[in-house]
């Protein structure tokens, strides 16, 4: 049975043992296959909890979760075959002392036949631009490279859904761009849920979820979120420099410095002509 919904949550509620407050409270949402969805919000807002409920690392107190038609709480291994998670710290996600062995780890667990495993490992390593790194040891790689190895390990399993849990938080600008450009390549062919603190990473997202205090505070588009000063402030979200300048100048959303410069030039020329 083909389910048109990739991820669905109904009245999802969860609290950590011993915690006074709910980590997630009555969250409902549906994500169709192939959608690129950003998840933002302050720390402790419930972003990471949502990721962990979606692949069965945590089990909801109440409500329903379905990922690709399966319930992660009852069928975690089936769900993990279809869902890959990229975590924040690549240093602690790599298991094996060599790149190729690490990329193979997920396939080993699934019991994929060895000849196919070789082929898929090779492909996955090449697809993140690391061909030739097969025998490198993780501790000799840069942060961006490590995170790409981790991504290759997920892609080798060919998941339908990718959950990215702040994958760039520990990286420098170059590493961040390395990882993001791979993510942009993948968006469209897979459902991507991308948790981040950096709004500039979500310029290309189809949709943005705002989680605050365990509640779904907004379910909107990037453009609408970026132009809603109230919503941004309430959820402690900070605009990147260029859109922030544009907003402070009363100009519409701008993405790049060039766009903003052009908008300013146009507006000032309009003014000149009007006079």
């Amino acid at each position: 049975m083909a389910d048109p919904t990739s991820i669905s949550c109904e009245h999802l509620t969860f609290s950590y043992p011993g915690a006074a407050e709910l980590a997630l409270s009555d969250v409902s949402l549906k994500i169709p296959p192939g959608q690129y969805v950003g998840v933002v919000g302050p720390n402790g807002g419930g972003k990471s909890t949502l990721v962990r409920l979606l692949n069965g690392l945590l089990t909801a107190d109440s409500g329903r979760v379905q990922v690709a038609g399966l319930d992660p709480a009852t069928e975690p291994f089936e769900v993990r075959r279809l869902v890959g998670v990229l975590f924040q710290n690549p240093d602690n996600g790599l298991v094996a002392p060599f790149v190729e062995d690490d990329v193979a780890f997920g396939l080993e667990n699934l019991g994929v036949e060895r000849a196919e495993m070789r082929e898929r490992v090779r492909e996955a390593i090449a697809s993140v631009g690391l061909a030739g790194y097969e025998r490198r040891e993780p501790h000799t790689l840069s942060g961006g490279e490590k995170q790409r190895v981790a991504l290759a390990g997920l892609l080798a399993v060919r998941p339908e859904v990718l959950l990215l849990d702040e994958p760039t938080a520990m990286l420098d600008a170059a590493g961040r761009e390395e990882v993001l450009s791979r993510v942009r390549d993948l968006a469209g062919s897979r459902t991507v849920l991308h948790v981040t603190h950096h709004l500039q990473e979500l310029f290309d997202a189809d949709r943005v979820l705002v989680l605050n205090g365990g509640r779904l505070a907004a379910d909107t588009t990037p453009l609408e979120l970026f132009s809603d000063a109230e919503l941004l402030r309430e959820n402690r979200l900070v605009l990147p420099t260029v859109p922030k300048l544009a907003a402070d100048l009363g100009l519409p959303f701008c993405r790049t410095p060039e766009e903003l410069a052009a908008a300013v030039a146009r507006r000032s020329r309009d003014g000149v002509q009007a006079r």
Partner: protein
Amino acid sequence: MTFARGVGQFYPVESPLHALDPRAKVVATALFVVGLFFVDSAAGFLAAGAVTAALVAASRVPLGAFLGLLRPVLFIVALTFVFQVLFLREGPTLLAWGFIEVHEEGLRLGLVLAARILILVTAAGLLTATTAPVALADGMEDLLSPLKRLRFPAHEVAMMMTIALRFIPTLGEEAEKISRAQAARGADFEGGGLLKRARALVPLLIPLTVGAFRRADELAEAMESRGYRGGVGRVRYRELRFRARDAAALLLTALAVGVAALL
């Protein structure tokens, strides 16, 4: 950067020794080490030493890697040697100077023990330098798997080995980083007596332990989310194939050890 390549680590070059099945190498090394305890003649040690030297040459691992391995052992070798020479007073006296007496048997046993330790460490170094850590872990798992029937967790032990090998450099870097950070706050890890030194380590050991637990947590999460559930239904990426040359290598080792022991 200072942890570029530690002593006794895998040395990724191509050689006949690298190409051998890890199981053959583990068994051969074990045979060699056990056999060494039966060697007690000069000719035997010469033979064992010559075989080891030939293997070192065949491994294409730079000699420096082995010298680095032997350096920390030299102290133990020297201590053992001196101890035997000075305190074993059997056989004819070779030298007497004040209260120091050197007897033939003492000198002989000192030399035997020294040779044994040096050859043993080199042989162990050969194994780790020519076998990729993952292959070594896989080989160990296979060799230990008959014990699975006795509920011995062969897969888990191998996985622990793999993870340990993966994280040793990372934790080493972290230890260095933390000790530098504490040094920048005035910590002194060197001066003072034993107790003072032990106490000075607290600001290093606590963060290191806290960090290791955090890493373990995150690693477990990542492994689980990648579908890990123990050895059940797992297919290993690396295929171990026991070929004719592995059998030959084992046989030759057994022969060499036997000859050396008989000499």
